[in-house]
């Protein structure tokens, strides 16, 4: 996907079937449900083993230089399937104090748009709002952003092969990001 979220794949958006669009939406909704319900192993099963996952750093730039907000130089996360597996393993280690007791999250995934498709892979963008609270406090964090995903067709269904998470924050809101977006 390019910086302004246009597709590099061959099929223009107009040719994409409603069936494909609804399968992609269903994949993203299911993923969010797994994460909200802390079914981390189920979530892992949605990832391709050659996953590339990035959360780039965002800067405040003046109008006209917005393309430098994400200048590709600096990340909060640069993950692979193996590192995600490690992060999931930690959640079950009994020592993940940032998430024990667990925070409560509700992910709202919306504005899902299928941008391109080449038979094997589909490019999908979506927005998310992740509400997170913990303990007996009424305070909460709202983490917002957009995602550009590549979903791959496999014999067992769609798998997430690539994700870029573009946060709406230049200074991160939560003190820790011990959660998956």
């Amino acid at each position, binding site marked *: 996907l390019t910086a302004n979220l246009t597709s590099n794949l061959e099929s223009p958006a107009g040719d994409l079937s409603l069936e494909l669009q609804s399968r992609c939406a269903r994949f993203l909704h299911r993923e969010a449900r797994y994460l909200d319900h802390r079914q981390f192993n189920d979530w892992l099963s949605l990832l391709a083993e050659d996953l590339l996952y990035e959360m780039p750093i965002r800067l405040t730039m003046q109008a006209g230089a917005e393309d430098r907000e994400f200048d590709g130089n600096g990340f909060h996360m640069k993950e692979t399937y193996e590192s995600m597996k490690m992060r999931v393993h930690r959640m079950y280690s009994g020592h993940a104090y940032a998430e024990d007791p667990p925070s409560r999250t509700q992910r709202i995934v919306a504005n899902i748009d299928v941008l391109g498709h080449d038979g094997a892979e589909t490019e999908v963008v979506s927005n998310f709002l992740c509400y997170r609270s913990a303990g007996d*406090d009424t305070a909460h964090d709202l983490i917002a952003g957009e995602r550009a995903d590549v979903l791959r067709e496999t014999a067992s269904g769609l798998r997430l092969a690539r994700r870029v998470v573009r946060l709406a924050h230049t200074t*991160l809101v939560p003190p820790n990001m011990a959660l998956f977006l």
Partner: protein
Amino acid sequence: MVTAVGGRCEQIEVRRMTVSVSLDQRGGATPGGGIDEFLATIETDLRQGTLPVRVFGDPEIYQLELERIFAKCWIFVALEAEIPEPGDYVLRYIGRDQFIIVRDRDGVVRALFNKCRHRGSQVCRSERGTATHFTCPYHAWSYKNTGEWSGAPYRTKAYKELAAAEWGLASAPHVDSVHGLIFASLDAAAPTLDEYLGGMRWYLDAIFGLTPTGMKPIGRPQRWKVQANWKSNSEQHMADAYHVPFLHHSAEDVGMFPGIERGGAGPEGVSRHVFFDEGHGMILNQGYLPAPWHTTGYPPDVAATFELDRLSPEQRTWVEQYSATTFMIFPNLGLVRVPSSPHPQAPPSVFTYLRTWQPLGPNEYVNSNWTLGWKSASDQFNDEAYVAALSMHGPTGILESDDTVVFQGAPNAGASVFARKQGLKFNYQLGLNGMSDYELDPTWPFPGHASTTALGEAPQRAFYHRWLEEMRRP
């Protein structure tokens, strides 16, 4: 009650208090007595290895910290490599004040207060870039990148008699750098940076000066807000190996740092503390990884680029025996240099990060984090070290996530009425007067005080002695 993201409502209240309580009202405004009387009692506490919880949760103390520590000490603001060319700038904070850290047209690095002298609007609003001038959007007053007043609309009609030389941007009176690390002090009467660093300067050579070309940032700094008191971060970077095997046990569980006891303060743990009466300090290790890795943790191909004859014979001896796990330069610059595996099958990769924490209140600060690589190392090594650093530390790091949770306790206790009425104090007695297997090593041949183990809190006590000294100095 410690929660992952809790405590926000209470913090909003505390912030309001910060605004409404002026220093002139200090007498009766805070339960527990006036601030000067309170500070006068802490010397005795520190000698006994205790510290009143109020130190961590009082808005008046926070205000005084801004005035007497952050507006006086040398504060790290940027790396020279972030602004290599004339006109390059980044926006950075000292306490709550935003500065333009700019390399001016003559190559001089300056810290310009990012407030127009006319009405206080921000004159620079991109957080990094290159500029010859900074022009305020309000009435278009303009300044050169040296900070000098440069012009205003209708100048010949509007400002016929303006003493332009007096109306440049305010700037930090002192800016200096060492090993590419830029520091600024807002105190005209500050000592030189070298004097301020004292014996730490010797160790900076041995940490950053291993190659002629030095270190560079990999990627833009990360920035995130933490609900905690800034001093918790200072004392942890300075000396707290004790917590590592317990709070961070998950790093061993998942294969990121096998044998987490080696990072702790117990018998299998890190080597010792080195610290200074000025409140700076370090945790030292003697190599986490076996040969052929270097003592510093770097693999042979990176260690081969070190030119240790740049150092003094004593520094070379030190580099061959020790490496800094962490350091903390008073009040708010930290370093961590440890190996981490971003997943269990990946070999450990040693990374170096630099960190500042700028306080927004008694219970909130903003972290900035730079991961550093050696200019002499391969891109591949630096990239691997970068990913290793991101996996372990920072807002998304699996170790550091847990620190942010436990740090929330101190300011909450510090703001508690019950705690104040009880005269509640925290315990800093580890290693005090024979409490633990921890003594000062009279044979230490290098600068600073060195302890025999890391099972003590002498550096933390030295930090708070320095803190107290600054807080009591008008």
